[in-house]
């Protein structure tokens, strides 16, 4: 299904990451946005509030982030693509209802423009320290999909990709950008609507009375039941069975949680998106995501000029983490280096998957600025010894 040309601002623009994220959501067909202002994500809400009236969308600034997340779930159940945006403190507030979105299996998109934390932290400066929270922020066992754009152009494209993933896998999808990408202005080329592929929600073809919300299917994703069409379904955040009815015992828990986990784990190969460069025959591989994946470039170029065989992997999807690939690489390279604007979050995953088969290094800091390429270069040199 193609994007609707009414929504797409085809052309060459000079936009910052936040504006591009908003345009991406709109191009994907988002028609409901509920948010709360929080630096550095506010421009997304502001742009959406400007664009929506003439394209039939509703923007509502909710009273807090808790309400924002609940409202986008409600709108999604009403059949409308919905999104919200926030940053660290708001992300924490949204966690309970994010879990509800996972449990109810509701498609929607949440953009977290990360800033320095913890607590109020550094509102106007970048960080990448919410990555583990993206993975485990809500309580309980579940899997997430989180994307990390590295530029305004990617912010546009990944917003669309996030909507497609959410409609395909029936879950909230995270776009974990950061203040640097969000406030960086670059050229963004928005293609014509016919070139934008959208995945539409799959509704059941069964009659009311014969369809249940969480019917077991081979791929683990059940067709949606439309509201207001006589299906009279029930869905709950309590542990439930295929009928959506709450069942409080260990067997139902096992079945329910397994379903949520398998939904992502059985499709990791389709979901994971890595961009690898010079990894064949590399001695050292540098992994990064978001803005950091651009900052590593000068350091790698410098090291390669000196003959060091260093490759790079940009993680476009950060979650699910590319376990298989890292385990494979760990047996082939000397060192793996993770560059992120925190004191080791996704690094912990890389280290775990390396399982001692190679050296692992973290180039991290508390946030507030992007890395200095020299710091990365130093670690590459260290890793080579």
């Amino acid at each position, binding site marked *: 299904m193609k994007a609707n040309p009414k929504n797409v601002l085809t052309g060459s623009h000079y936009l910052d990451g936040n504006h591009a994220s908003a345009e991406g959501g709109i191009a994907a067909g988002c*028609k409901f946005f509920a948010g709360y202002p929080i630096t550095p994500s506010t421009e997304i809400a502001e742009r959406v509030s400007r664009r929506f009236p003439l394209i039939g969308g509703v923007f509502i600034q909710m009273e807090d982030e808790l309400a924002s997340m609940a409202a986008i779930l409600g709108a999604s159940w009403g059949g409308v693509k919905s999104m919200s945006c926030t940053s660290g403190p708001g992300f924490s507030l949204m966690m309970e209802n994010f879990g509800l979105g996972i449990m109810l299996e509701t498609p929607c998109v949440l953009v977290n423009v990360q800033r320095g934390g913890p607590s109020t932290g550094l509102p106007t400066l970048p960080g990448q320290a919410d990555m583990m929270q993206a993975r485990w922020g809500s309580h309980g066992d579940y899997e997430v999909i989180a994307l990390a754009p590295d530029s305004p152009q990617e912010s546009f494209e990944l917003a669309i990709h996030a909507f497609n993933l959410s409609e395909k896998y029936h879950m909230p999808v995270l776009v974990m950008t950061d203040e640097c990408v969000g406030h960086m202005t670059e050229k963004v080329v928005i293609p014509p609507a016919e070139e934008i592929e959208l995945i539409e929600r799959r509704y059941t073809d069964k009659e009311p009375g014969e369809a249940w919300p969480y019917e077991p299917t081979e791929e683990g994703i059940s067709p949606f039941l439309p509201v207001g069409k006589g299906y009279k379904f029930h869905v*709950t955040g309590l542990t439930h069975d295929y009928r959506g009815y709450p069942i409080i015992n260990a067997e139902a828990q096992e079945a329910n949680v397994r379903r949520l986990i398998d939904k992502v784990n059985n499709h990791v190969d389709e979901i994971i998106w890595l961009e690898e460069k010079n990894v064949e025959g590399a001695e050292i591989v540098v992994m990064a995501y978001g803005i950091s994946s651009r900052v590593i470039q000068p350091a790698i170029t410098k090291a390669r000029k000196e003959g060091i065989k260093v490759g790079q992997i940009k993680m476009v999807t950060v979650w699910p983490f590319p376990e298989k690939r890292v385990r494979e690489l760990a047996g082939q390279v000397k060192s793996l280096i993770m560059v992120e604007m925190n004191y080791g979050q996704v690094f912990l995953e890389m280290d775990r998957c390396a399982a001692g088969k190679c050296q692992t290094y973290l180039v991290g800091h508390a946030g507030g600025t992007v890395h200095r390429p020299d710091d990365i270069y130093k670690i590459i040199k260290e890793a080579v010894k």
Partner: protein
Amino acid sequence: MSTKVIQDQTQEREEHPMERLLRMDRIPHIWCPTCGIGTTVTALAVALEQLQLDLNDVAIVSGIGCTGRVAGYTKLDSFHTTHGRAIPFALGLHIARPDLKVIVFSGDGDLVSIGGNHLIHTARRNVDITVICVNNFIYAMTGGQVAPTTPITARSATSPYGNYEHPFNIPLLTASSGAVYVARWTALHVRRLTVAIKEALTKRGFSFVEVIAPCSTLYARLNKLGSGLDLMKFYHDNSVIRHGADPKEVNIDYQSKIVVGKFVDIEKPTYLDCLNNAYKKKFGDKYKPYGGGNGDK
């Protein structure tokens, strides 16, 4: 002189009339003997039937708590959401599908404590949903803790020596936030409650009905008030009907007079009315009034 003809009125009902609206595969429900929630659900069911609404067009959203379980027992498109967040969820659902009648059915703790912020803002916006709040003065599901509606001196699991905090006056709270319809009845006034629910459902804007209901296992037991039946007898002897009463004067003190009636019934443009009017004014003919979230299709 007028002539009236009384028609044949034999009614044949083979099953309980409520069964049309209930998920019979989940009955009997979990509510205690002499709990007033079942009665309130009956009032809702009769109201829906008398209004002759197409049940396909009604959605119900509830939160967490004893009353929150209502979504699980009513045979409508129903959503059992997180604690306190039924109202914003219903807001999102309503905006996506303004053609549906969205009902929020939840308890006092859920709507007024953790959900308090959402209650006042959604009332402020005058979003066209109907909220039915079952007030049993306590957090029943979790074992009887004090609630923001618990009267002073009442005992509860977390106010073992008697509550000393001022409780909320819910009609005042919702009326001052901007609700266009505010009424309070007890579970005993089941017929008037049905009328109030019918009025609330047909009213355009944020309509709120508070239902004082007996809680036998927690509120009554912890305060040694007998059973839910004793509480119903108390409502019988101590409720005073005062339509149009000033919401400021309908506080509920411990085991004293309960003022019931319809307190607020005004007209005000709804959230979507205001949205459409403002954009129409700004954009003129370029603006297509919002009628639902699938304008592309």
